[in-house]
């Protein structure tokens, strides 16, 4: 974990409303593991003081890239960042996804910026599997070609049917799953809460492994403030686990979902 003043080297529209921000970060770039994230201090955020976490989409010896969608105060304020501006980042943060278990068949499930979060994992995985991507419209299904290039079978679903099957990710996943050697599946999931929960439930019901990247609001990002906690099951009940340091990736069985 390092704090680095990173220079913007690329910043433009990526797809639909999504934008890509590429930062020169020679200290953080080389040490990123798939599923980790950055904590970014947005310049010109007016009177707001907290950083915002972003999954690392790409990383190499020179820097990192993230994909984001302007949806609120922070992400809106990132728009005016120009090439050459500097951004204060802390990273890489979080545990990231574990290695694929021997003999398991990898499945990626993602929604929205979750696609970005899984790209490095897709690249690293030795065996190529199937990627289920869900979104509201075709615009929310990111990086399809990139995943295909890596050798993955990409199966998009959209709420409006503008790309792939019409429905939720589960609309496509459930029948597919039924035809697999279910217990050999190992899922790597990153997406909105309901998607995480749906996949987690299936993992438990059908007895496969699902690594879920949890999306919780953060303050410190380094484990100090205890903002980002979720309930993790332990033998006699539950304990709090911090998404920023104990996660963001948890196996479905670890999580006690809030009612």
């Amino acid at each position, binding site marked *: 974990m*390092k704090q680095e003043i990173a220079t913007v080297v690329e910043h433009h529209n990526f797809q639909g409303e999504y934008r890509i921000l590429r930062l020169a970060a020679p200290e953080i770039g080389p040490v990123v593991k798939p599923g980790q994230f950055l904590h970014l201090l947005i310049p010109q955020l007016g009177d707001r003081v907290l950083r915002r976490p972003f999954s690392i989409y790409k990383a190499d010896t020179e820097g990192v890239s993230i994909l984001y969608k302007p949806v609120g105060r922070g992400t809106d304020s990132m728009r005016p960042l120009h090439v050459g501006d500097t951004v204060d980042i802390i990273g890489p943060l979080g545990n990231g996804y574990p290695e694929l278990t021997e003999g398991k068949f990898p499945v990626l499930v993602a929604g929205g910026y979750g696609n970005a979060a899984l790209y490095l994992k897709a690249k690293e995985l030795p065996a190529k599997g199937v990627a289920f991507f869900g979104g509201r419209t075709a615009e929310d299904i990111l990086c399809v070609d990139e995943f295909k290039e890596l050798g993955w079978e990409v199966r998009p679903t959209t709420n409006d049917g503008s790309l792939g099957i019409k429905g939720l990710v589960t609309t496509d996943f459930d029948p597919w799953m039924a035809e697999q050697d279910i217990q050999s599946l190992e899922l790597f999931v990153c997406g909105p809460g309901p998607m995480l929960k749906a996949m987690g439930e299936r993992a438990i019901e059908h007895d496969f492994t699902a690594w879920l990247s949890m999306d919780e609001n953060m303050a*410190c990002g380094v484990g100090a403030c205890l903002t980002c906690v979720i309930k993790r099951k332990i033998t006699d009940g539950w*304990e709090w686990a911090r998404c920023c340091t104990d996660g963001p990736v948890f196996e479905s069985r670890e999580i006690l979902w809030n009612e």
Partner: protein
Amino acid sequence: MSKPNLEVKIGSMVMKNPVTVASGTFGYGPEYADLVDLNRLGAITVKGICPDETIGNPTPRTFETRGGMLNAIGLPGPGAQGFIDKYIPFLSQYDVPVIVNIWGKSMEDYGTVVEMLDAEDTVSAYEINLSCPNVKEAGSAFGTDTDSFSRVIELVRGKTKKPIIPKLAPNVSDIGAFAKAAEEAGADAISIMNSYPAMAINIETLKPELANRTGGLSGPPIKPIAIKLVWDAFKATTLPIIGMGGIYEPEDAIEFMIAGATSVAVGTANFTDPSTVDRVIAGIEHYLVEKEHRSAFDIVGTVKT
């Protein structure tokens, strides 16, 4: 010119510079160790500890407001024994005093937690949290009534020879009365201020933004309130004061010292920029050099009124 002496003392605890961190904003030490050179700090103040393991409040626990944040973490923690097991080995590696922030669900708890911790050499001092806005027991019950406030301090005083530092509630009309009460009850210093009781409501859901409904406001918004409280307390007591509330820049820390704080704590700013403590220490030194002071203590309480 020779370098100014940054050292200050809080009771018998020597800090190599006036800067510590605010309890609850720096974990127990390891969390920021990659980003901050812990040995550079005047002291490490850890998150609140009570005798038993505690779970704190439900989520959401924090909320960003204009200029600052609300928190209602609710003092989750490993308990005294858990703290000793999990964090003392780590903390003892460093050459920096450790201030343990303590709290209790009952008055007795404050004594118990000190009894459990006091044999640890790594524990240098106790900050007694009597002002948590998020836990009824540790907050309004003891912090806003001088009688029970004094009794908690006397109880802790009876259990330890280490410096004890009650942390005062800001939401009182007369902080001077609490400062005096702390002095009379045997405290070695006081710390001011905890986050200020506050609230935010989501106008779409009609629900409070924090699961606990209310929380504590911290960060830059509260600095001018904290400066006044420190100055008021400074006039009322001879005890050293650890000042905090919205310190983001060296100038903020210096302002606290001029108002009467011997030591200062960086809180919310750690989240924004973990290099704040480092910048603040350097900035205080720079200011002392520029103004030709020999020691950090020279500027404490020098406000011209």
